[in-house]
Every structure is written in structure tokens, then in C-alpha cells.
């Protein structure tokens, strides 16, 4: 009888330890569960057509800001708008950042290097500007990431000049995407007719919002952190 009691007492503590270990294991398993989709995805479009190519340095500034803001699990892609933008060759760099901070740093350096290489190798501006094709390209990328917050930054004067063979008369389907037009330059024709500039912005806004997206215009990049909350 006394032996049984002693055995029971001796086993009481290991049972408590086993319970604690089981709780820790459960917590560990919960921690290894599927990651919640609370990540961000950003697609940057740079217009390299005749009227806007001189502003291409802005993309470096924007990339630096985005790389400093984005973190593990987020996605970033940088592409350019030229005569025909709905192709894979338009993408300068794209990546989804790893869960480990040490790898994230390497990925950011790689993206920055590709963007810098593109800037250094740029020679000839394009004659046309296929903005719709670029937006469609970005839309497909952003929808593919399945991120919770999706941003499409467009560095362009928003003056679309399509080649005759391209058909871009279609719905954009921008549900869940915030389209931010950055540094929208006024063209020489806008000087003669300022209303044309506002009409251009209004038409893009109407088109984006009709297709389910949210529209925003920020002409100074310095205001970007205050106007667009990536976090």
C-alpha cells in the first residue's frame, strides 16, 4: 500500500512535466500552421516612352522606399511600359521575400541590383506607351500573389499611345488593387489645354474604379509615405 502511494507520488511530477511538454508541443504545432494571408504585394510600372523616359530615375527612389518598407512574405515586382507591355520581358525584377530575415536582405540587394542594371543599360525610349498592357501585367502578378493588400504603382504621364495592332479594349478587373499614379507629368499639350490633363486623370480614375480598383494620384514621391500606408 505504502509502495503504491510512493509510486504515485513519484509519478506525479513526471505527469506534470509531460503535460507541460504536451502544451509546448501543441504551441509549436500551432506555430507551424499555415501562414495567414496578411502579406503585401507591390507592382511598379515605369513608363519609358518618349515623353517620360527622363523621369526613369524616380523608379530607383521608389524602389528604395519599397524595399525598405517591405519585409518577409511580401512580394515586389518592377516592370516597364513600352510599345507592348503585356509580356514577361517587361518585368525587370520580381521576388517574394523569404520568411528568414537574412535571406530577405539578399533578395532586396538582388532586386536593387537588377533595377540599377536596367537603369544603366537603358538607351532608347519607346515610341508608344502601352499603359493598359502594363496594368494588366501587374494585375495578373498581384492576383497571383494572393496577398491581402495589393498595390500597383504607375510612374507615367498616363498618356496612352497604343500601336495600331494592339487591342486593349477590355475590362481591367482590378478588384482589391489600389492603383497609385505617381509623378504624373504635364505634357506640352496640357500647357495649352489644362483641362485635357484633368480629363486624362479623370478618365483613368473612372476606368480603374469601374473595374473594381481604387485610384489615387500622388505627384510628389516625398508624400508617398504619408499618403499610402503600406503597413
Amino acid at each position, binding site marked *: 500500500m505504502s509502495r503504491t502511494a*510512493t509510486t504515485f*507520488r*513519484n509519478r*506525479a*511530477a513526471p505527469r*506534470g512535466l509531460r503535460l*507541460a511538454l504536451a502544451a*509546448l508541443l501543441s*504551441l509549436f504545432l*500551432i*506555430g*507551424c*500552421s*499555415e*501562414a*495567414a494571408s*496578411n*502579406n503585401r504585394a507591390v507592382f511598379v510600372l515605369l513608363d519609358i516612352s518618349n515623353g517620360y523616359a527622363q523621369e526613369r530615375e524616380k523608379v530607383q527612389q521608389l524602389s*528604395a522606399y519599397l*524595399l*525598405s518598407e517591405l*519585409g*518577409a*512574405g511580401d512580394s515586389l515586382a518592377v516592370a516597364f511600359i513600352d510599345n507592348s507591355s503585356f509580356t514577361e520581358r517587361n518585368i525587370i525584377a520580381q521576388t517574394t521575400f523569404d*520568411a*528568414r*530575415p*537574412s535571406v*530577405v*536582405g539578399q533578395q*532586396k*540587394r538582388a532586386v*536593387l541590383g537588377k533595377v540599377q542594371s536596367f537603369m544603366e543599360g537603358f538607351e532608347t525610349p519607346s515610341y508608344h506607351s502601352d499603359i493598359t498592357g502594363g496594368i494588366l501585367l501587374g494585375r495578373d502578378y498581384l492576383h497571383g500573389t494572393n496577398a491581402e493588400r495589393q498595390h500597383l504603382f504607375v510612374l507615367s504621364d498616363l498618356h496612352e499611345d497604343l500601336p495600331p495592332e494592339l487591342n486593349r479594349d477590355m475590362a481591367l478587373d482590378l478588384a482589391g488593387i489600389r492603383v497609385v499614379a505617381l509623378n504624373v507629368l504635364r505634357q506640352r499639350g496640357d500647357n495649352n489645354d489644362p483641362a485635357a490633363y484633368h480629363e486624362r486623370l479623370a478618365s483613368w480614375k473612372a476606368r480603374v474604379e469601374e473595374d473594381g480598383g481604387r485610384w489615387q494620384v500622388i505627384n510628389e514621391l516625398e508624400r508617398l509615405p504619408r499618403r499610402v500606408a503600406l503597413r
Partner: protein
Amino acid sequence: MFSEILTIWSDSPALSLAIWLVIAITLLYAGRPHAHQLLRNTGRSFYRSLRLAGAGVRQLENRVSHRNRDVLLAAGREEAENAIEREFARVSEIVERDLGQYPVLHRRLNETLEKIETDYHNSIENKPMPRAWQELMDTIGKLPTSGDPAVNSILENIRDVVQKSHDETLEAYQSDINERHGILKGMRPDWRNLGQTMGKVHETITGLDERSKSIDRQMAEYERMRNSDDEAVNTLMASSLKQFFISSLVLTIAVFGAIVNFHLIAMPMSEMVGGTSSIGPMAASDVAALVIIMVEITMGLFLLESLRVTHLFPVISRLNDRMRRYLMIASLVILVIFAGIESSLAYLRDMLAADQAALAQQLTGEATGGTEFGWIPAMGQMLLGFILPFALAFVGIPLESFVHSLRTVLGAVTLGLLRALRVTLRVTGGLANHLCAMLINLYDLLIMVPLSIERMVCYRMENREAAPESASPSEPETVQTEASEPPPEIQEQAPRKRSRKRAEPTAAETPADADDLPLTTQEA
């Protein structure tokens, strides 16, 4: 709507309002007894209900107070018993260690000291010259000289031989004395050492005396606790509050230490568990860092429990020594492993921070400068990561004090709340009663016109009834009667006084707390 109702009697609002007032006053006058009854009963019921609730709260307060007192005394008794037990254990240890062989040692020490002292005193005295040699020298010196040269020569030779022998004997004697004195001189340090040993023994005896006084003091305190003395309760309460504040302060410091530890390992934990997964609103890496810190604290608690420093887990206290030792070793090993992990994580954190700083400089286009003394913060973080788990492991000691004193503090707070509730209930009941009394007076103030008419009518009717009675006697009596009649106000107050007297309970009916009863409406 309001204006329509107001002008229902006449188009003139003033006239209509006057009619409304007359109607209202008439209705109020008609309903005066019922309204008074309603207000009076409402006030009294409020007062009595709240007073009843206050009495209930008081009973609960007494019960909580007694319970607090019992708990406090029980805890104090247990602590005093432990303290007395510890004192006795110390005394026993001192007796066994220092005084076990004391009687034999004391006897030997005394014998040795006496012997040494006697020898020393004997050895330092200069022995007188042996008496035989002195007498011989005196006899030879007194021998008569006959003038014979041969005899004189013989006597001279004998004196010389005796003198020489005497000198040799004296020299040998002095040499022996000096040698003996030297031996005794060499024994002096031993003598002093023995004296010091005796001094230590004396100190031990004195220490035991102090211990016994301390035990007497604690026994007296224990006796006061057993007798539930108020002074002992107050002392225990003060001690408990002091323990509560001190342990709270130390626990706050420990919490800050845990926060520093968390920030030290949270970022590098994302390198291990990933920075994208989350558990609820928190990142998985943060949760993992918190779990590590909690496990370290738990291991520290187990370690202190197995060392019997704290007594939070009776299960561990009841374990046999072998199991307890195993638990202690296991806790210590796990703690050391976690400290090593934290140290490496701290180093990883430093590396990641340096990498992020370099990346930020690269993004902003600034020149990357090398850090010459970058190893110093890295080493500091590693050391911090290794030391903090052990520092957090000692949180069990203040935690135990906090838990023990928390019961007392919670009891005192509960008692205070109950007292505040009781006072609030009583004050609210009194206020409600007085408010109703005020409303009764206000009611009478609204209908003062009909009340005045009523008083006048009553006065005249009383006068009329009194006139025939006073007409039959002689005139002077009538005058006397009129003169002795009190004024109308006094007449009006007379029934009141009677009713008041009737309303007052007798001494036998008066409740124990009659002073707390409210005034009646008429009194008000």
C-alpha cells in the same frame, strides 16, 4: 400640444393657467393624505431596505475580517514556527560543532595552562647558589693562618681548587637554567594560542546566549499569535504589506528584464520559425520568444523548488531526495541550454541588425562605413542573452512572497470595499428618507392656500364650540379661560405633540439602533 392643453379653458393663457393651478391645487389638497402616506412609506422602505442591505454587508465584512485575521495568524504562526525551528537547528549545529567536546577540552586546556604558567614562573627565577658550596667557602675563609708558609700554601691551594670547582658548578647551573628558559620561551606562542582558543570558545558561548534570547523573543511573538493578539495581527499585516510592495517592485524589475530579453531574441527567432506565420494577432516568432522566456522562468521555478528555496509546488516538496536531485539537474541543464540558445540568438540579432543597417545605407546611396568596434555590442548582447535567463530564474523568490502577501492585500482591499459599500448604503438610505421628508414639505408648500383656509375654518369652529361652554360660568372665568387658552398656533401644535408622543416607542420597544432611525414625516 402643450399650448392647446394650456388654453383649453380660455383663450387667455394667464386665465387658463390660473384655472389649471386652481384645479391642480384642489386635486393636490384632496390627495394630500394619500400623497403623504405614499412619500412617507417610500422613504421608509428605501431607508429600511438599504439599512438591511448595510447590515448584510456588515455581516459579510465581519466574516471577511475574521477570515483575514485567521489566515494572517495562520501564516504568521507557520512562519514563526519555521523561524524557531531554524534557530534551534542553528543552536544544535553550534553545540555539535563547537561545544561537543567542550568539557574535556576545557579541562585539558586549564591543566596545560597551569602547567605552562608554573614552569614559566619557575624557570625565570635565578636559583641561589648551592648552600654547601657557600658554607665550604666560608669555612675555608675562616681558617686561621698560623704563619707557616707551607700551611698557608696548602690552604691557598685548597681555596683555589674549591673556588674553581665552585665556578664550574655555577657555570653549569646557569647554562642549564638558560637552556630551560629558552625551551619555556619557545612555548609562549602555544600558550597564547591556547588563550585565543579559549576566547573563541567564550565567543561561541556568548553567541549561544544571543541565540537563546532571539528564540525567547520569537517564542513570545509566537505566543501572542497563538493568543490572537491584536498587536501580533497588526505586526503581521504591516509585514505582509511590506512584503507585497517589495515583491511587487522586484517583480516589476523582472518584467522589464523579460521585456529586454524578449526584444533581444524576438527578431532572430524569425530566422528559426519564419517571419510570416502568425498565431492569432501575434507573429509566431514573437510567440516563440515569449515561450522561451516563460520556459526559462518555469525552469528557474523548478530549480528553486528542488533546492527548497521556494515552496510553491507541494508536489515537488513531497518528492524524495533522489527525485528532487534529478529534477534539479534537469532544470539546471535545460536552463543552461536555453541560456546558450539565447546567447546565440543575441549574436544572430547583432548580425541581422548590421546587415539591415548596411542594406539601408545601400538603399539610400550612402557610403558604407566599417564598424571598428562592432564586436563590443555583439559580445555585450551575447553576455546579456546568457545572463538574463539565470537572472529571470530567480524570479521565483519574489513571486512566492508576492503570492503569499497577495492574499492578505486582497483581503484588506475587499474589507475596505465592503466598508465603503456599507457606508454608501447607509448614507443613501438616509438621504432617500430625508428627500421624501423634503418632498412632503414641498407638497404642503404647494397647497399652502387651502391649508391656510383649513386652519382658519378649524380655528373658527373651535371658537364657536368653545363659546357656549364658556357662556354659562361667570365673566371673570370666561376671561380667565380666554387668557389661559393658547394662541391658535399652539392649539394647532397640540395634537401634533400628542401624536408624536404616541408615535414614540417605549423603551422596551426601542430597537438597539434607535439613534439611526429616521424622523417621521410629522417630525420632519
